[in-house]
């Protein structure tokens, strides 16, 4: 196309320069037409050039925007990732805190707060289903003496050992915990006082057999009071009856089990 235009240009330049055509009526018109054509061509060149400039500017800006967008996207992904990680950390911390708040530090058993929570749940379940549950309070005999003569570290070891025996004696859905001091509680769903007594006897035997005050082989025993939940009562009444039965066991000379009258 360009070559065609150049060839045409040369031909027209030649024609316009030829002397015998100078007086021809078309000579002036051709000359003017040719200059108009050259003007238009030059203008088209310029417009195209400017247009190309704009286009490459727009393209450049698009690339910059895309680069910035990709960068922001990467940043956002990183932000989400790190933020999720912090959130998981918080959740794990919550679980750990909740666990710690329900556990007795020394024995690792359920603490009083957790026992109370489960007592409330079991009372509600029992009221709905009519299935009874039993509470056994177990207290280590002459514990103060162990602490006073052998020291608190020895007392702590006895508590840990008794806790281990309790834990090892229970079914999966039973719960044992430290109610306070040297007093432990067993919470036995779907259990009658009679079967609770059998379990308590087994536990007391294990305590006599295994839980020795370490330094002088002093034998350890425990007293137990058992009560059954009565339909419609508050669990604190069940616990009070178990406590009263435990007191009775102490009064009878310790190392024995007393069932609360149902």
């Amino acid at each position: 196309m360009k070559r065609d235009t150049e060839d045409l240009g040369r031909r027209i330049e030649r024609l316009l320069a030829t002397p015998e055509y100078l007086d021809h009526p078309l000579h002036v018109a051709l000359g003017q037409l040719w200059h108009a054509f050259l003007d238009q061509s030059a203008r088209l060149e310029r417009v195209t050039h400017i247009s190309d400039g704009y286009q490459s500017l727009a393209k450049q800006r698009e690339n910059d925007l895309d680069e910035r967008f990709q960068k922001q996207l990467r940043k956002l992904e990183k932000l989400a990732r790190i933020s999720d990680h912090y959130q998981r950390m918080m959740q794990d911390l919550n679980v750990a805190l909740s666990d710690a708040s329900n556990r007795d530090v020394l024995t690792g058993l359920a603490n009083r707060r957790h026992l109370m929570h489960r007592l409330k749940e079991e009372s509600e379940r029992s009221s709905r289903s009519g299935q009874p549950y039993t509470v056994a309070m177990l207290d280590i005999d002459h514990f103060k003496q162990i602490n006073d003569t052998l020291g608190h570290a020895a007392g702590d070891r006895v508590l840990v050992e008794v806790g281990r025996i309790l834990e090892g004696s229970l079914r999966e859905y039973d719960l044992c915990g430290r109610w306070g001091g040297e007093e432990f509680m067993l919470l036995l769903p779907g259990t009658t006082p009679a079967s609770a007594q059998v379990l308590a006897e087994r536990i007391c035997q294990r305590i006599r057999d295994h839980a020795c005050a370490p330094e002088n082989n002093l034998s350890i025993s425990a007293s137990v009071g058992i009560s059954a939940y009565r339909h419609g009562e508050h669990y604190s009444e069940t616990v009070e009856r178990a406590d009263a039965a435990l007191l009775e066991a102490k009064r009878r000379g310790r190392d024995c089990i007393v069932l609360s009258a149902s």
Partner: protein
Amino acid sequence: MSNLTISGSQSTPAISGDWEAGVLTMTGDSYPENSFDLFNQVIDWVERFLADGKRPLSLELHLLYLNTSSVRAIMDVFDLLEDAHAAGHPVAVNWHYDRRNERVAELAEEFREDCTFPFAIVAHD
């Protein structure tokens, strides 16, 4: 030519910028009501410091929990450091953590990704 001092609270880190020493320290948890207000001061301070010659700047971070907007603010600060580093400005980050809390180190590592300036994760007992 000014120090930055923001006292910490339960939800905001203690922040101190020592202009002479070129050290910016942040300590504690960060989940402020308005993290934009809080960290704008930090970003301003870092920008002013970096614009004032080429003295070394180091960040000493003892951060524990950060909420999302705080994470973003810290990333913005690191972006400033990254640009400064690319321009030949000596900058560094030391992220300190308690050895018992390994997850803080994992998080610091995630922050460190794509940072090319010196970034140390320092365990303490």
